[in-house]
């Protein structure tokens, strides 16, 4: 066990996989010699060579397309998209090709590509360094969608994704790279070294996709969330002294419906929370599933806690970000309802 922040844990996962499986290659903008703008691939090119850790042109479409071709030729590319906000030039290759290759070729061809990309706000990055587009990808049949919330999970999930024979979009909430964040920008930053999930096994281990983590058991209300909002929601519930059961989904597709519904059937109340914009966000799917499966158990309408339906505004970061106040309002509403 070692102290690792999320970047180090991701680096460790890739290090281990490069060492273990000669078919694993990393590729992306600035990821080679430089080690990535967030330094997730630091040292890996030096260790494994330029032909295993490739710098690429600034062309997200070309990165995804060539990764598909490489994977069809037996490699297992892990492609970094520098910011999730820049994934759209690769969208056609992801949606029309990566996600559908296995299906359209009746399983003869498949593309075990992992796309890693930092997402989310809270870093004063403005509208093009703060987006949370995960919901869009969850609507694309054939893609797996993962978002860890801590170093331990990040490493185990990334190893699982790299070994998975299906394509995965792996979102990394960049505000959590250096430590958990409870939504209050005025508090001093907390490092991962002071958090149990910052204790990371140095060796190879996996965390299965489709298994949510109950980060806090509780009986009063179920909070279904993932990424940064795990900490924001926990802090808000704690501040209100509400015995919330907090579920960190970790993988959005496949989705651990059982854990969610078991919890809601127990608590009878539910909020879903994410940073992404509200309208047609992934929260709508979560809410829908809970409504469909747990309707008769619900004692109050399910509430969504989300970013507002605007682009991410640079100067209004903390009015935009779904912080504790927004969670509390939802908790209030869901607890009060009778």
């Amino acid at each position: 066990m070692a102290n690792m922040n999320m970047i180090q844990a991701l680096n460790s996962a890739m290090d281990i996989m490069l060492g273990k499986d000669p078919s694993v290659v990393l590729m992306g903008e600035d990821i080679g010699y430089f080690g990535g703008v967030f330094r997730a691939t630091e040292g890996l090119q030096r260790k494994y060579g330029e032909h295993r850790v490739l710098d690429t042109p600034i062309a997200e479409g070309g990165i995804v397309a060539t990764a598909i071709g490489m994977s069809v030729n037996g490699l297992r590319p892990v492609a970094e998209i520098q910011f999730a906000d820049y994934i759209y030039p690769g969208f056609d290759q992801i949606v029309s090709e990566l996600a559908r290759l296995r299906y359209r070729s009746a399983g003869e061809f498949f593309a075990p590509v992992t796309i890693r990309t930092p997402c989310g706000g809270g870093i004063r990055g403005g509208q093009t360094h703060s987006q949370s587009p995960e919901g869009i990808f969850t609507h694309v049949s054939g893609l797996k969608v993962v978002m860890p919330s801590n170093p331990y999970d990040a490493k185990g999930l990334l190893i699982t994704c790299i070994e998975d024979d299906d394509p995965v979009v792996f979102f990394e909430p960049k505000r959590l790279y250096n430590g958990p964040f409870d939504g209050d920008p005025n508090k001093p930053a907390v490092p991962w070294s002071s958090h149990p999930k910052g204790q990371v096994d140095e060796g190879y281990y996996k965390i299965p996709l489709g298994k949510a983590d109950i980060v806090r058991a509780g009986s009063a209300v179920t909070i279904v969330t993932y990424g940064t909002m795990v900490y924001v929601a926990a802090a808000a519930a704690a501040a209100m002294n509400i015995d919330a059961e907090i579920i960190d989904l970790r993988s959005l597709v496949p989705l651990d419906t059982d854990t969610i519904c078991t919890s809601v059937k127990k608590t009878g109340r539910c909020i879903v929370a994410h940073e992404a914009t509200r309208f047609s966000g992934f929260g709508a799917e979560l809410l829908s599933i809970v409504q469909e499966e747990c309707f008769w158990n619900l004692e109050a309408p399910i509430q969504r806690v989300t970013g507002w339906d605007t682009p991410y505004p640079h100067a209004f970061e903390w009015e935009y970000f779904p912080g504790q106040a927004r969670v509390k309002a939802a908790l209030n509403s869901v607890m009060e309802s009778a």
Partner: protein
Amino acid sequence: MRMNKHSRLHLPSPPARPGEAPDFSYVHLSPAGAVRRPDVNARARDVESLSRDLVRVLDDAGDAVGPWHPHLDPAELQIGLRHMLLTRLFDDRMQRNQRAGKISFYIRSLGEEAVSVAQCMALRPGDMLFPSYRNQGLQIARGIALVDLMCQLLSNTRDMCKGRQLPVMYHSKAGNIFSISGNLATQFPQAVGWAMAAAIKGEDHLAASWIGEGSSAEADFHQALLFASVYQAPAILNVVNNQWAISTFQGYAGGEQRSFAARGPGYGIAGVRVDGNDFLAVYAVTQWAAERARTGAGPTLIELVTYRGAAHSTSDDPARYRAKDDAEHWPLGDPIQRLKTHLIRIGEWSEARHQALSAELEALVAASWKEAIAFGTMSEGPRLNPDLMFEDVFKEMPQNLQRQQALMRQERK
């Protein structure tokens, strides 16, 4: 060029619309044998003229001339003729089947058979092919059984795609032919990625891909050229310039200003413009490009100048947008006719043998069709199990798809 008296926007126009006389004076031709054949290791910048000229081997008389003459064994040429003829007869029959309502959709390659057949023959079986929908000649030259192609067209119980794709969207893992996409040009940079992987693994296979000149307008064309150039990937990137993209003339893909091959040198990639209806020239140019790829001299962009002899697809009617007898005036003739003439001229073929071959291949097509329909047609015989709809979305079927599969079964009760 027509334009409103105020607008000064340039709008490309084809030389002949319906009712007008065909005019192919815009097609820049070089005489057969006239274009030099640079060393396979020449640098891209030193072979730029190849992207403007037109490599041709067969002259009007049917003789093979000049430095690009590949000196193939007559037996090879006969195989090429056979594949091309089979491709055409297969197309004819499938077109008729579509018209008769036996398949839902079809796309012919009439007049473009040399592209796929000669290129495939110039490559090795281990080379990976990333075709477009108009490369059935690749399937045939790689020896995919007609009945397998037909079962795909029928979406029947032996359909390689398990009913999931439109007709003609074939693939063959065993034959090293990639799955065809309905989304134009996506396969072009994928092929480059495949080639990059071959290089990373130190293997000497190459990847070849085909797109239409219209599709070269898509972003993926640029991505393919760029990545191929940066990593000097062992790839052959082919633009089949058959002059039309559905109703849109090649000028709308940029062909009015410059050849498509000329894009290559702009990216530091060798670009070669070749007579796409000249089996020998296509073979020779492909062989040259393949040797470049295998010897580390980098990728090649080949523009195959040809003509779409038929409608875009069975959903299209070209009489709406181009001169009716255009194809007959195409200056580069018909690829099958030209190879046949050559073979006869060198004493390796005859009208009689041609007749016999035609008859044999027609019989093969007919027999294959008979075999194929035994596996089911659109209206009769066995049908694929709809359960298959839920497989291969992921490697393992997730819970929600299992549930949906169960619901679907209930619906059908």
